[in-house]
């Protein structure tokens, strides 16, 4: 029998339907793969017993012809999603041994559709990071290595565990969240597909909040089709999230393989950065050629406020984070460090519970919201955000269906390589992805090639609001042309 962990999600689904194997067999193969890959540190909690129970239940349903769209499919869940009775930490010491008494809407929809949970996946603490090095469980290792080198590389972040696990065959797909690039950047670093949906497409209820006006859940998988399959189960209206949109969920998989003939694809000139590595330029041009060959029309477009997206993000996101993370006070859940009075108890709890990156962002957020600075920083940043969104609206109004950009300014880097004194160096990783969150748009990262050292590189497609389907169609054209990328197993 072929290795069940090397199947795509769609192949596994079809194999289950044809009774070629059971969900329990498929799940056992993944449990074993997870145990053998602990060196990657992708899972922070393995739930094999729960996985077996869910797999057996799925097999019974499949036998009755009631398997559901994800019946029996083993998945990993980012540790930012609350899972009932299963430790959920956001990879922060401050949540300690938190066991939610409720289930996030997105994961509950995956289980509704028959999926099996293998465990909880590592991420940057509270999703704050671009390398998965800020997790209290330690960094995640990318299954990819430079040719001829055994230097450990980061998988990107914040959803680094999800990206690493999917790329290494430790699950057929995974959930992630994306606030400034936390799905698309790690997808690019790990040579897999990652989709950040339109703001409001997936419910945020039960997901540990970072920056509420930017956070959005989305899927990771090894193919565009698999990502589309997951997306259909994750999306949908939820009365418990007032920003979730009441709109029918399309059959995203039907968009995969659809012709892109006649679509107008924008190439934004502002994304051509000074000092951009030549291989990124080349990849981008190659991507444009592939789309042209498939019948799309390529046009140069302008998004004049692009360069201000990242600085505006580093005001808006920390401001919202400082407010959201005020709830971690050592009273209602999580760890507590005592003090002489209640204020000291708060201060000691938060000093011990938050890591350096989270503390830094809470402090900058507190500062930009504080009396006398609100107008100069926060209000100005929100105005700049309006301008960033308008850039995209103008572009779409000219008939552009989607925008093609590189996903990241480089391939994966080494652990500790960007841990210098200036935090901004790390933040620049999200330069191509953060605009999309600021404007609330959908974006997909699709692997498109390799750099000179053999590491995967991705392209990003940005779409019109709620037009994820077009991104899946175009993404599949890139995938067909570029092929698939699988790391050599060394772990």
């Amino acid at each position, binding site marked *: 029998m072929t290795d069940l962990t090397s199947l795509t999600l769609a192949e596994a689904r079809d194999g289950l339907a044809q009774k070629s194997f059971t969900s329990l067999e498929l799940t056992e193969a993944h449990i074993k793969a997870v145990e053998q890959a602990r060196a990657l540190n992708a899972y922070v909690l393995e739930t094999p017993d729960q996985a077996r129970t869910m797999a057996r239940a799925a097999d019974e349903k499949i036998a009755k012809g009631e398997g559901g769209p994800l019946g029996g499919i083993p998945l990993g869940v980012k540790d930012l999603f609350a899972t009932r009775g299963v430790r959920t930490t956001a990879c922060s010491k401050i949540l300690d041994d938190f066991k939610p008494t409720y289930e996030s809407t997105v994961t509950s929809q995956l289980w509704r559709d028959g999926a099996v949970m293998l465990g909880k996946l590592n991420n940057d603490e509270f999703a704050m990071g671009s390398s998965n090095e800020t997790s209290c469980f330690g960094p995640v290792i990318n299954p990819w290595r430079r040719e001829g080198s055994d230097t450990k590389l980061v998988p990107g972040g914040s959803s680094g565990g999800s990206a690493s696990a999917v790329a290494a065959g430790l699950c057929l797909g995974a959930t992630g969240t994306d606030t400034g690039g936390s799905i698309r950047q790690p997808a690019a670093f790990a040579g897999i597909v990652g989709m950040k949906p339109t703001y409001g497409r997936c419910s945020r209820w039960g997901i540990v909040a970072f920056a509420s006006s930017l956070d959005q859940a989305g899927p990771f998988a090894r193919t565009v089709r698999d990502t589309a399959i997951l997306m259909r189960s994750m999306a949908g209206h939820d009365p418990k999230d007032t920003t979730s949109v009441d709109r029918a969920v399309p059959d995203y998989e039907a968009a995969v393989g659809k012709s892109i003939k006649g679509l107008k694809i924008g190439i934004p000139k502002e994304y051509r950065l000074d000092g951009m590595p030549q291989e990124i330029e080349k990849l981008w041009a190659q991507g444009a050629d592939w789309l042209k060959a498939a019948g799309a029309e390529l046009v140069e477009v302008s998004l004049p406020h692009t360069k201000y997206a990242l600085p505006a993000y580093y005001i808006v996101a920390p401001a919202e984070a400082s407010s959201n993370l005020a709830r971690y006070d050592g009273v209602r859940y999580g760890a507590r460090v005592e003090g002489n009075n209640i204020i000291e108890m708060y201060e000691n709890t938060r000093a011990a519970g938050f890591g350096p990156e989270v503390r830094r962002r809470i402090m900058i957020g507190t500062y930009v919201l504080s009396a006398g600075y609100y107008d100069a920083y926060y209000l100005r940043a929100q105005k700049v955000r309006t301008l960033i969104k308008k850039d995209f609206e103008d572009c779409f109004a000219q008939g552009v269906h989607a925008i093609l950009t590189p996903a990241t300014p480089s391939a994966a880097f080494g652990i500790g390589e960007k841990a210098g004194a200036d*935090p901004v160096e790390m933040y620049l990783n999200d330069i191509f992805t953060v605009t999309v969150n600021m404007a609330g748009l959908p974006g997909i990262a699709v692997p498109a090639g390799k750099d000179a050292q053999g590491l995967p590189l991705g392209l990003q497609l940005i779409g019109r609001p709620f037009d994820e389907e077009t991104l899946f169609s175009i993404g599949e054209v890139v995938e067909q042309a570029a092929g698939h990328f699988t790391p050599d197993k060394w772990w």
Partner: protein
Amino acid sequence: MSVDASTVRRIAHLARIAVSDDEVPHLQGELNAMLAFVEQLSEVNVEGVEPMTSVTPMEMKKRADGVNDGNIADDIVANAPATEDHFFLVPKVVE
């Protein structure tokens, strides 16, 4: 704009995060690096621009003002570090 050491201590206190004296210079450097980075926003002409308040143009949904949940006190205190009879315990706040 940049922050001095006493501002760092004030922000830390506002954020309810204990900071020791020897951590202040390091934090000050990091915060100033971030502030220098966001400084470029001052070049943007935002005259007459509305600040973004809603990411997707939609009216916030409202629901009937009725109780639709409750009687889950056990669940609510389940993860608390210190409780008694469904109350959260905190250090004394009233003398």
